[in-house]
């Protein structure tokens, strides 16, 4: 609809200087897409978790024995 008449008319200053000041503003860090993990990495992490758990269990058992 290009022919619709607008009731607002554009106002351009005829006198004086038109100036725009570029004020530096603080910036936010950008949103972060999270990288997906490769199968190998997931398996590594899983194995590491399991190993840590196993060691913890053994240490607990050792403590109970010594008590």
């Amino acid at each position, binding site marked *: 609809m290009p022919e619709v008449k607008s009731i607002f008319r554009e106002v351009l200053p005829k006198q004086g200087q038109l100036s725009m000041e570029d004020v530096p503003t603080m910036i936010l*860090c950008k*949103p*972060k*897409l*999270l*990288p997906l993990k490769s199968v190998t*990495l997931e398996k590594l992490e899983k194995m590491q978790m399991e*190993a840590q758990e196993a060691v913890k269990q053994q240490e607990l058992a050792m403590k109970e024995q010594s008590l």
Partner: protein
Amino acid sequence: MEVTMDPLFLAWSYFRRRKFQQCADICTKLLQDGPYDQAAWSLKTRAFTEMVYIDETEVDQEGIAELMLDESSIAQVARPGTSLRLPGTSQGGGPTQAVRPMTQSGRPITGFVRPSTQSGRPGTMEQAIKTPRTASTARPVTGATGRFIRLGTASMLTNPDGPFINLSRLNLAKYSQKPHLSRTLFEYIFHHENDIKNALDLAAQATEHAQFKDWWWKVQLGKCYYRLGLYREAEKQFRSALNHQEVVDTYLYLAKVYQRLDQPITALNLFKQGLDHFPGEVTLLTGIARIHEEMNNITSATEYYKDVLKQDNTHVEAIACIGSNHFYTDQPEIALRFYRRLLQMGVYNCQLYNNLGLCCFYAQQYDMTLSSFERALALVASDEEQADVWYNIGHVAVGIGDLTLAYQCFKLALAFNNDHAEAYNNLAVLELRKGRVEQSKAFLQTAASLAPHMYEPHFNLSILSDKIGDLQSSYTAAQKSEDAFPEHVDTQQLLKLLREHFAAL
């Protein structure tokens, strides 16, 4: 009388169904009855190996010692476009830091993370030592103290009767004569025990027994040399193996050697050579794409990832990388299609839902945004992930103008991960809007010390100091910002202004 199945057959069946613990248990019983049962012994070694098997072509971990005391580099300052260590040298028309966040090593973040990309190369010793303290992925002091050795010792600890095979009492010469046992034994020593020196001994004797004609043993020798850090020897073995037999894996191992030697161009040529023999091979194409990505040449990396997808349209890495590239080149709706495709393929984790949420928000599909983030929060596996998800929700809150929610989100991100530098920076911006200058300054300083590679905290600190009249601090902060991101226009304008001030004094 009940008829029972032959135990060895049952063990084999368990092995084929990947029930390795049951398989190993049966083999243990068989070995108790007859300690010289070679079939049971061999099967048990294979079961143990499979339990901890990881794809060796994918694994790569550089310790601080290997990084900083590097003997293999040819030049201190490599020419642009020939090294993986100068991340900023070849801009392939990708988005700048102003749009795409950087990792600590100064590379744009990628859509996919592998063991080798987890931690890039820091520039200085100080940074190298500092990095593990701030990131969720810790860097070991040397490759020998890394993950491998921890896995190896853990597997021994869990066995109350001590290790299955006592390597120090093993007569390697005897085993190397028996081809049907030596291979499984080698894999057991290499993967399960992580005893590379013994593995190397066995491989050397076995290859001698095979009269240096067996490509398999040469590849294994190369793998051992690689783990021991003898890259030139590894290269020789792999080259020699390729002369006997063209195998895709050997190309991948050899390329890994060249990447470690910081010769990406040689690696690229090698991959292309491999593609002549194996046209359209997905792993080779992926290798090329990864090198381009590491050299900061995102555009051509994307081209190669597209080639990968032409061969294998379910390749998660390629889809994720192309998706993230679209997101950061201002096309979130296309990125959304790629991530949706991953969802259709059955990838179901926190990272994917987080990315979907972000894409939905920036593609103006507001109905899906919050539900995606809710799912992401329900699927988190660690505190660091939770922090990242809250950080991104904070961005959505900023986008809809709900600054109170944004404030709370960034605070939550910090509650889950106290080293989240981005959250500190954004929180500082919000604090300044509330007029709390001191608090804002404190947050910015924290962010800057946590992540010196980011330019945002330095730049913000510079503006803040400039506003309160502390021109000297403003100037130093602006200089740091320029170091982190030389092309940033606002920083340069600020610096110019400050220099004019100082000149007028």
